[in-house]
């Protein structure tokens, strides 16, 4: 049953949920070849912040440098990407009125993969992979949207179909590039598509964090509206909602977020589907709660998955493989447990 406790129980629960990614982040920063206990991590982070604010050149230890140069940007990136994908999934599921929709439904992943493949294949300047991945990710959504539009209406069925078409087109084009490039570049493309946080750096973060946070804030502010949009177009219109305009706003914000995330991390599956489901099953369907909690749990899940990806073996596992291996059984478990109820 959906948890509807009194507000006295809910506040501590939500407090914990929102602190979770930070707690996991600090513990995760200690995990790796060089083990660092959480209190050292915290001390080190304060030292770095202090240095940055007061320009005082307090001496940095090896621990500080490992944290600052490698682990922190990577953990923050994982958190931000997980948060974007989970929120995007939750938003799109509502506006498509289908709990099985994932962030890539409008072809954003295929577009981004094509952009990345193009940049790798042509061997363009550094940063071009991210740039083209972002660019073609947005192009694919734009194409799908304009294809779906008939008059002033943008029916959901059209959108799904257009997404399938655009995805197929860009996947074919990506295959074409894979076919022509040399094996070394081919490996690069394949690795990019499997997703990784190894490109994490402060400069990358500085590029994607502000727009993603802005989108997140706007989506959270409008989250109640998603409840109305998850009704049929007719009902939403009868309730005074300009359905096509509001749906467009949500589509723009959520796909922009995802395009930013995907451009740095590559394509990471399952998070956008799994996290909103878990949230709905445990906290109910009201999007005023689903959106912020998805953001928090998406970030936590991704940081944990990346911990395993980078430290479980002597080599790095592709993150998308891990999210699926972790996510699929979890999802299965949830479905089995709820099998007797209609839970979708």
């Amino acid at each position, binding site marked *: 049953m959906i948890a509807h406790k009194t507000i006295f129980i809910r506040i501590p629960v939500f407090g914990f949920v929102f602190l979770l990614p930070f707690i996991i982040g600090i513990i995760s920063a200690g995990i790796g070849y060089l083990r660092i206990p959480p209190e050292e991590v915290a001390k080190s982070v304060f030292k770095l912040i202090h240095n940055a604010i007061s320009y005082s050149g307090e001496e940095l230890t090896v621990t500080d440098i490992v944290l600052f140069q490698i682990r922190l940007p990577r953990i923050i990136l994982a958190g931000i990407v997980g948060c974007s994908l989970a929120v995007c999934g939750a938003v799109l599921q509502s506006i498509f009125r289908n*709990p099985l929709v994932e962030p890539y439904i409008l072809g954003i992943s295929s577009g981004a993969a094509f952009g990345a493949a193009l940049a790798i294949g042509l061997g363009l300047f550094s940063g071009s992979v991210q740039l083209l991945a972002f660019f073609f990710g947005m192009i694919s959504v734009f194409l799908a949207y304009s294809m779906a539009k008939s008059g002033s209406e943008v029916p959901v069925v059209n959108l799904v179909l257009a997404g399938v078409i655009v995805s197929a087109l860009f996947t074919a084009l990506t295959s074409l590039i894979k076919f022509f490039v040399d094996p070394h570049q081919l490996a690069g493309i394949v690795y990019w598509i499997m997703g990784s946080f190894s490109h994490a750096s402060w400069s990358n973060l500085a590029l994607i964090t502000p727009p993603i946070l802005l989108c997140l804030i706007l989506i959270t502010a409008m989250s109640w509206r998603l*409840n109305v949009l998850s009704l049929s177009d007719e009902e939403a*219109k009868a*309730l*005074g909602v300009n359905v096509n305009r509001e749906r467009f706003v949500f589509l723009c914000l959520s796909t922009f977020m995802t395009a930013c995330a995907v451009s740095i991390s590559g394509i990471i599956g399952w998070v956008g589907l799994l996290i909103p489901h878990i949230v709905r099953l445990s906290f109910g*369907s*009201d999007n005023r709660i689903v959106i912020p909690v998805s953001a928090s749990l998406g970030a936590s899940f991704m940081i944990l998955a990346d911990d395993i990806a980078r430290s479980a073996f002597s080599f790095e596992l592709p993150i998308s493989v891990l999210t699926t291996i972790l996510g699929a059984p979890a999802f299965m478990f949830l479905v089995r447990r709820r099998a007797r109820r209609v*839970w979708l």
Partner: protein
Amino acid sequence: MALRVEGLRFSYGKRLILDGAELELREEEILTLLGPNGCGKTTLLKCINRILKPEDGAVFIDGRNYFDMSEREIAMSLGYVPQEHRPPFPYTVLDFVLLGRSPHLGMFSHPSEKDKRIAMESLKTVGIEKLAKRAYTELSGGERQLVLIARALATNAKILLLDEPTSHLDFRNSHRILSLIRRIVREKRLSAIITLHDPNLACMYSDRIAIVSRGRIIRIGKPDEVMDERILMEVYGINVRILRVDGFNYIFAEVSE
């Protein structure tokens, strides 16, 4: 007069559905649209609150042309009750009724305590405040229909539009829901347009009946004045007999095969 419909025309592609429908809804009355499948009564209802945009004609709400009104203003004047169905997400009943407040709220606002109170009152009016915390998707068809009525009441609209409120209900629930609608309309001094399939239900619960045929209103008036065998035969294309028992008209179909 609460609402006036003037010369509405609407077509899906090349198929003309509404061909100049005209009617007037008086204050505090229940007007039923009656007619066979495909006659255009549901389309007419959807054109009345501009879910569908008519190609020609207009609707006047309290004397104002609704093309001069925003979607939100229309939603505040006309509470729409769609046919009962199961949505994909299991919102609680209270959250679902709260959606009726959306015409009063901007894109960035969340419902306040006052909105919540109005939603609870609407639930009380239809008598299901006990279900407030239940998941909407787990209710029976009759209960879901009540929730939809509560949601329309939560908009504070003075006019209700109900699209076949009895379509998924059994004999008992059909009568319960229609008498509830009648009670609410009387108590809150609202007006309502209802589409119905069953001529007997229409006779029992409406102040006036409008018979819809091929996209036009061919007759409108009190049940006694409107219902006669000849016109029902013409509209439905079968033999119809009307029996008068204890002051009530009972309408029978005479099926030959």
